[in-house]
């Protein structure tokens, strides 16, 4: 008998920091979110692909997304639905705002208790903070085993998943029971493109907040309002200790922010002549770069 799994993919909407222009940072050193397009965090996309592959391998499995953010982060859920996810939850509440990784993982873990999945998959880290802390912290809070830097979720045997980890200098194969948290490395396969039919169906999917926003309501099919509702949860929906959410639950304090401008150093072109190599070696020794 094959078993099926309930999988939750943790995904984050992030400013696209890969193509940072001049206006990327504000004067005060915070990220200028208005100048950067909001995208699906790339490694969370790799995580989604792993989840969708499991869904194909284990018929009956369900993939849901969980994201925390402002109302517009519903885009993340829709992107997942376009690619084959079955649903998703948007954690959105002013009380969640200003969260560091600790408060974020607390909020996610509270939502996950309610969703009760077999497997939690997320990207290794988000490109805005680069902390790689949220996945592991969620695992700790839920008391689940965690596998980081995963590249491939392999066979299910003896109630254990085999997982391939990409570590420095090689690959490590580990096994884990479920429930577990797995964070996926960028070296894992890229996510599949959107599916045409899924897109045409779910482009109408809305959160309640969005339904109240007239702008989005231009052509909503009446027949499918119920099936196309994206779940929104606030602090009161997930319960827990209010003080542990958002700013009040975040011990991280920013002491100082510095703008660092990375500049490409002048490059030198050498021929393969012995003299030029000699002089380079001498220069590097004198600069204490080598020797």
């Amino acid at each position, binding site marked *: 008998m094959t078993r099926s799994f309930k999988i939750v993919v943790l995904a984050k909407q992030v400013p696209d920091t890969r193509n940072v222009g001049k206006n990327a940072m504000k004067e005060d050193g915070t990220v200028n979110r208005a100048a950067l397009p909001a995208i699906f965090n790339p490694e969370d996309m790799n995580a989604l692909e792993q989840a969708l592959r499991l869904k194909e391998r284990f018929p009956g499995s369900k993939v849901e997304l969980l994201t925390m953010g402002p109302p517009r982060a519903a885009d993340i859920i829709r992107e997942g639905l376009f690619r084959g996810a079955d649903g998703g939850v948007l954690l959105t509440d002013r009380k969640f705002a200003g969260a560091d990784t600790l408060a974020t993982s607390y909020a996610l873990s509270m939502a996950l208790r309610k969703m009760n999945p077999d497997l939690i998959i997320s990207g290794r880290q988000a490109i805005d903070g680069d902390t790689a802390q949220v996945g592991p912290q969620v695992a700790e809070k839920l008391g689940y085993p965690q596998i980081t830097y995963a590249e491939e979720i392999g066979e299910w045997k003896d109630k254990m998943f085999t997982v391939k980890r990409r570590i420095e200098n090689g690959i490590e194969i580990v096994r884990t029971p479920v429930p577990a948290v797995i964070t996926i490395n960028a070296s894992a396969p890229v996510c*599949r*493109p*959107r*599916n*045409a*039919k899924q*897109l*045409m169906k779910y482009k109408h999917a809305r959160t309640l907040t969005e339904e109240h926003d007239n702008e989005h309501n231009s*052509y909503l099919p009446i*027949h499918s309002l119920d099936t196309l509702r994206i779940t929104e949860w606030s602090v009161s929906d997930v319960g827990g200790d209010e003080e542990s959410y958002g700013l009040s639950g975040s011990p991280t304090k920013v002491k100082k922010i510095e703008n660092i401008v990375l500049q490409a150093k002048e490059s030198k072109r050498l021929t393969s002549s012995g003299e030029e190599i000699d002089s380079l070696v001498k220069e590097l020794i004198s600069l204490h770069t080598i020797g």
Partner: protein
Amino acid sequence: MGNYYKDNKDLKFHLSHPLMDKIVKLKEHDFRDSGKFDYATCTSEDTIDSYDKVLEIMGEICADVIAPNAEEVDKTGPHHEDGRVTYAPGTQINQDVLIQSGLYGMYLPREYGGLNFSMVPYVMSAELVARADAGFANIWGLQDCAETIYEFGSEELKSEFLPRINCGETCSMDLTEPDAGSDLQAVMLRATYDPKKDLWLLNGVKRFITNGDAQIKLVLARSEENTSDGRGLSYFVYDKEWGGVTVRRIENKLGIKGSPTCELVFKNAPAKLVGERRMGLVKYVMSLMNGARLGVAAQSVGISEAAYREALKYAHEREQFGKPIIQFPAVYEMLAIIKAKLHASRSLLYETARFVDIYKAYNFISQERKLTPEERTESKNYQKFADMLTPMVKMMASEYCNENAYDSLQIHGGSGFMKDYPIERIYRDARITTIYEGTSQLQVVAAQRYVTNGSYLAMIRDYEKSEVKLDYLQLKKKLIKMTDQYQTAVETVSGQDPEIIDFQARRLVEMAANIIMSYLLIFDAQRDCSFSDSACIFTNKAKAWNDERFSYISAFAHNDITPFLSIKEENISE
């Protein structure tokens, strides 16, 4: 992370043509699928939005998957062993991604798992795929076969075969034989009815069959004993599962190397009849051909786009005499003409696709209810326009993509001749487009009647009635003069011997095409001024091209054909 749809705003421009609203409403039967299928659209705006978003998916796959695979696919090609064909690994990846994304069966109705797209976005997708890899465009584009089954097959055939298209089963169109190429009336492959099994059995050989090892095949075969012309031919559908067809060899070609071109042997291969006996060639293949010709036109425009972009990129990068070569008149002139031809052929392509859309939508509506007299007239007119423009766009777009690939390679200089740049592949891939699905010479034969019966002239005079803005008045005046000139040329030729009429036909068709494309570019420029350069450049060139043709035709004395005739007596002696 590229996107061939988003990086080319001309496509969205054509998608937003004023006629699209009408097309969508007809195609969607007033949105009756809304509520029946969860992915159905519910307004015209919603439908166009879906077209746009799905084209975005297509554009992403073309840029990120198909194009990066093209070089390797060209090099490796498909593999033939034990009578079967395996695609190059890259081809299989392209195929898998497109299936996963639901981009097969785009044109098919939703009840058969299709997306129920109209022709315009479907043709746009074909153009996108061809820009990425012209050879792969054939494999993807053969989903056209489903349309024939849908239009002419029984309910049973439809439900047996059509739902498999969206799942990605591939198709082939098996027409050509060693002795039946352009002249399909000579098809010999035998179909005999086996009453015991209630099946037809096919025996014989097909040659030059694109994607010949497909799962679903449409086969033209001789079902009527003791016949030798087109009326003895019927159309059959064959399922690979039924067995009896093997691939004897695959061709080693100049271009589109990723697309397997097969020689097939049919040995008692079971098949089912599509539609009625004897209608194979005269009705079904002709209809399929029109779709296929539009497909080649789309492929050609895609190739032109690729050639243009390669040329533009290289002309900026390459520096000689201390500056980028695009600064030299000899180079920028070539580039601007490549672009003008690209724009002109694309405008003609989508004008044709819109006409096809309207009459086909009416055809489907007419199966359910009687059309009103106005609708019937409209449908008939659009069908005629589509029939007039299809051979024209097939010829012009394919000729232009060859000229554009040639000029683009020229701009690359010696580097273009090497395997280091994509242009050498594009140049080779372009070459087939003026040949298959009817050579340019045969497109002239199909178009010729619209020259002689005055249809093109009437169409042009109709374009002439449209008001143009002040900026384009001078161009329009030129076009009116060119139309008068064309009219004179037609009159000069039409009184002459049939031999001379055939001899001059191509010049006349091209003259009409040049005027039509110029008008279309002016209309485009009025909607979006980014087309005004192309409208201006193209119309001026068109005038020069037509002057040359006119001068040749008007100076051509009756006996000027004689020196041409003597070539028929010459031969290479062994």
